């Protein structure tokens, strides 16, 4: 969606145009849902939060001055709403049902990859998703805002009420914590490169 088009949609939605708002929902529901899902590790809760976020957006649009981008605003709303829910329901991180199909990661079919590579990729993605779910809430939040939502240190700082320097070190620590959980997933030993001799065989 081009930024100009979005500004127009916002303008119309502000005045109560449901169709324009629906277009905004269509555009943003997935990023919002995904952010909520990775924060809460529960698809139902994530759907509830997504609903709540867009309701808040609908109500707050008349006051939207367009000084910050809609995406930053939405991500902040989602973070706040999800954390609020966590606080209210006192869900512990790591309370994750690994059997839940909906939490399985999607790996889009890639015709250039062999089925084996596809499987490996899915396993890696799955391991990463599980590890992310096990991180502390603070680490998970900051990593999601950075890696999933692509926000800058400054934008993240505004949402989490931290200065960019603190954001920088917290992201680093979050990555290291994640790497610790993922030891062995990306280790060169699991790759084909081996100095032990023999050609690299697919395991």
């Amino acid at each position: 969606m081009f930024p100009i088009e979005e500004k127009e949609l916002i303008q119309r939605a502000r005045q109560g145009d449901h169709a324009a708002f629906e277009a905004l929902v269509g555009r943003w529901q997935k990023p919002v849902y995904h952010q909520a899902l990775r924060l809460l590790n529960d698809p139902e809760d994530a759907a509830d939060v997504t609903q709540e976020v867009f309701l808040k957006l609908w109500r707050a649009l008349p006051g939207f001055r367009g000084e910050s981008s809609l995406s930053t605003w939405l991500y902040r709303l989602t973070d706040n709403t999800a954390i609020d829910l966590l606080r209210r329901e006192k869900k512990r991180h790591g309370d994750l049902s690994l059997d839940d199909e909906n939490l399985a990661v999607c790996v889009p079919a890639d015709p250039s990859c062999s089925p084996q590579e596809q499987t490996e990729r899915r396993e890696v993605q799955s391991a990463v998703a599980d590890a992310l779910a096990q991180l502390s809430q603070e680490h998970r939040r900051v990593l999601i805002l950075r890696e999933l939502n692509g926000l800058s240190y400054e934008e993240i700082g505004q949402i989490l009420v931290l200065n960019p320097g603190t954001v920088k070190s917290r992201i680093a620590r979050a990555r290291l914590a994640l790497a610790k959980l993922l030891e062995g997933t990306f280790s060169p030993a699991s790759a084909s490169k081996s100095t032990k001799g023999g050609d690299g065989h697919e395991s």
Partner: protein
Amino acid sequence: MNHEQYELLMSAALDGESTAEERRELELHLAVCPECADLWKRLCAQSAALRAMDCQLPDGLKERIMSQLPARKPRRSPWKRWAAACACLVIAVGAVFAGSRIWQAGSAAPGSSADSPAGGSSPQAYPSENGWEGVADGTLKLGPQFDQCPAYAFSSAASFCYRVDTALPDSVCILDSTESLDTFLSQLQLSSSSDPDSGEDTWASQLSQLYDADYFSSGRLAAIVIKEAAGTPQLLDLTAAEVQVSLSRFPEDERADWLILATVDGSFSAQDDPTLTLIEADNS
């Protein structure tokens, strides 16, 4: 540099937040340190995997979202009318507030007293349109921070926070009757009657309906007008455990950012230097 510093550098480099010199220093180190080189590879792969993460959107989510929107149009912000605050208003209000009783919120968090209605009200107890947010449980609780939203509310047993765009000095005053509430609202140029354009209730008229004679027969309101302090935009952020506003510190010509109405009990006492402590509700 020790390994910890290189790790920080790696993370910054992943985000493009390192200087050219820092990157060079990192590259030099990676060339001679197999441990860090391994970590770097893993962090790169990990980051790539995170960025590639995807999810399955539940069916019908958009329909769910659209169906819950209020049928009527969102309210045009009533505050736009007062966006250009006039100096005479400041003087008028200042004069009125000077004449009001000024109270301090004591160590007891407003609304947490025993004679507040027991059991927090559910959000549905409060008007849910026009940017109101009901958040309740008996102590003053702060709502999410929407800096783009001109109006939202949080509530404890009977308190609201609503952003105003009017130049007002910081103040706290006690309202104990429908008349005093009307007077106070009119100072903010808020009409208590319905919007003549749409026939819909203004926020002020909804307040008047909520705080009616019945309410005032047993309750009192503290009307608290505060400003966002410079340098602390997180003043009313939900994540803040405690917010302290020292009312006497703000110059009179700054705009007020918050109007809070809180149910108060007799524990309020007058002080020369009024301060207000808003404490996040304890969820345990």
